[in-house]
């Protein structure tokens, strides 16, 4: 694995190996007072974030630091990007300064691929930490890790992804990965929030949530991304919540073993009722802690192996 740009690039063996590595790392660090491994000593990892983020950036930073890499955080607002420097020049500067890996979050879809193209020659590896409405592969991996912990193997499981599919990179990454791992995926959203071509993703598309609930092993709620919406996609937040919000009555319609996931940040009361978010059926904080181990596994797979000569 040279870069991690999309879950479409992951075959079953690689995806399973990443999840197994994350699981072993979790067990390795469990109950340890000092959570520090020397594995990536001397490697430099840069997080380059053009969008605000709490959990992804912190999670990558913690993952890198727990493996002894030198982690440098660059945010667009506090760097030369603010002076008008292009993504390419910023990236080449980071590579020239010795970055072994650049973790990028960018509002433009496809930016991580472009970056990987520019940095390939320098031997710098790229991890996509969310590019526009395209992909967020480590989020999909941590969701899969959480589902594996709660449900066991994912093959044959039925998982719904509910909400703002149109603006969601999490949904795309999850559909690819869950299908690779053998799960059945159903997408549930109002027609206005279903992206064009979603019927070709290999998942069923539905517009009503209630009939799906009794058949599910897991339900993954998405955030309504108001910041990406230019126009009316649904009449009102209240109406959206009535049709697609996961409330206590809907939680009751799910099978006993079914798990509730949300990539965060949550809009409590709109996509998910507070009582559901805080219920033991929800695995939301478990997702965050798995995020660190999954990102450690990704850094290990990318940076610890044989040195790549460009």
């Amino acid at each position, binding site marked *: 694995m040279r870069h991690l740009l999309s879950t479409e690039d992951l075959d079953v063996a690689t995806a399973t*190996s990443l999840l*197994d*590595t994350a699981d*072993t*790392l979790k*067990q*390795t660090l469990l109950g*340890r007072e*000092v959570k*520090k*491994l*020397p*594995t990536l000593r001397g490697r430099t990892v840069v997080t380059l974030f053009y969008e605000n983020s709490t959990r992804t950036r912190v999670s990558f930073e913690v993952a890198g630091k727990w*493996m002894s890499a030198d982690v440098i955080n660059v945010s667009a607002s506090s760097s030369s990007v603010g002076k008008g420097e292009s993504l390419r020049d910023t990236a080449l500067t980071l590579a020239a300064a010795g970055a072994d890996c650049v973790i990028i979050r960018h509002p433009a879809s496809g930016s991580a691929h472009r970056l990987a193209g520019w940095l390939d020659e320098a031997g710098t590896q790229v991890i996509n930490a969310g590019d526009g409405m395209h992909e967020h592969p480590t989020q999909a991996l941590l969701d899969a890790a959480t589902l594996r912990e709660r449900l066991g193997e994912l093959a044959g499981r039925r998982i719904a992804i509910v909400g703002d599919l149109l603006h969601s990179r999490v949904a795309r990454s999850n559909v690819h990965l869950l299908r690779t791992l053998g799960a059945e995926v159903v997408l549930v959203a109002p027609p206005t929030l279903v992206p064009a071509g979603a019927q070709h993703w290999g998942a069923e598309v539905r517009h009503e949530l209630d009939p799906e609930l009794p058949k599910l092993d897991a339900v993954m709620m998405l955030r309504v991304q108001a910041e990406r919406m230019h126009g009316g996609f649904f009449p009102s937040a209240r109406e959206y919540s009535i049709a697609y919000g996961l409330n206590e009555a809907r939680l009751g319609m799910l099978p006993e073993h079914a798990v509730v996931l949300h990539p965060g940040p949550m809009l409590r009361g709109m996509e998910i009722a507070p009582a559901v978010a805080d219920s033991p059926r929800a695995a939301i904080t478990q997702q965050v802690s798995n995020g660190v181990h999954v990102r450690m596994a990704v850094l*290990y*797979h990318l940076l*610890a*192996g*044989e*040195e790549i000569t460009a």
Partner: protein
Amino acid sequence: MASRQAADATDPAGQRELLSAGDVARTIARIAHQIIEKTALDTGNSDVVLLGIPTRGTSLAHRLAAKISEFSGVTVPTGTLDITLYRDDLRHRPNRPLEPTSLPARGIDNTLVVLVDDVLFSGRTVRAALDALRDQGRPRAVQLAVLVDRGHRELPIRADYVGKNIPTSRSEDVAVRLAETDDADCVVLRREGGE
């Protein structure tokens, strides 16, 4: 003449069997006796812990614990210590999968840890194991048991218990096969470029 005899014992695939299944069993029994004697296990010393280095070291640690129990009646806590994350050659080899680390419930603080591995070569694996141990706790002392010592040390490390010393050339490879992970028990010497 000697080299001719060695050549005669080598099969067409370039392998020579150094220890048979019977030899492996006898060697493990002998190391078990030595551990009992050196650690005074049978006279009330109850702080000994065997930690195998995956993959074959783990199997050996369990076999040693079984033999120790058979000979002395003492059950020795056994665990696994994966050292992959502590290796200093990670960038020079293809990625290797991680193995779980599992320590006895009592931990390793103030215990006598006997590290168990199949082959002692450069000593770098043992160095990594010592680093990994330091992150797990503070043993009272650490000893090392290996089935084969093939020489070519790159660090000042020696084993406390050695099954068999096998002088080798750097172009040769010593392969330990155990029934738990391979088809049978044996130790073979392979020429580079062999199987």
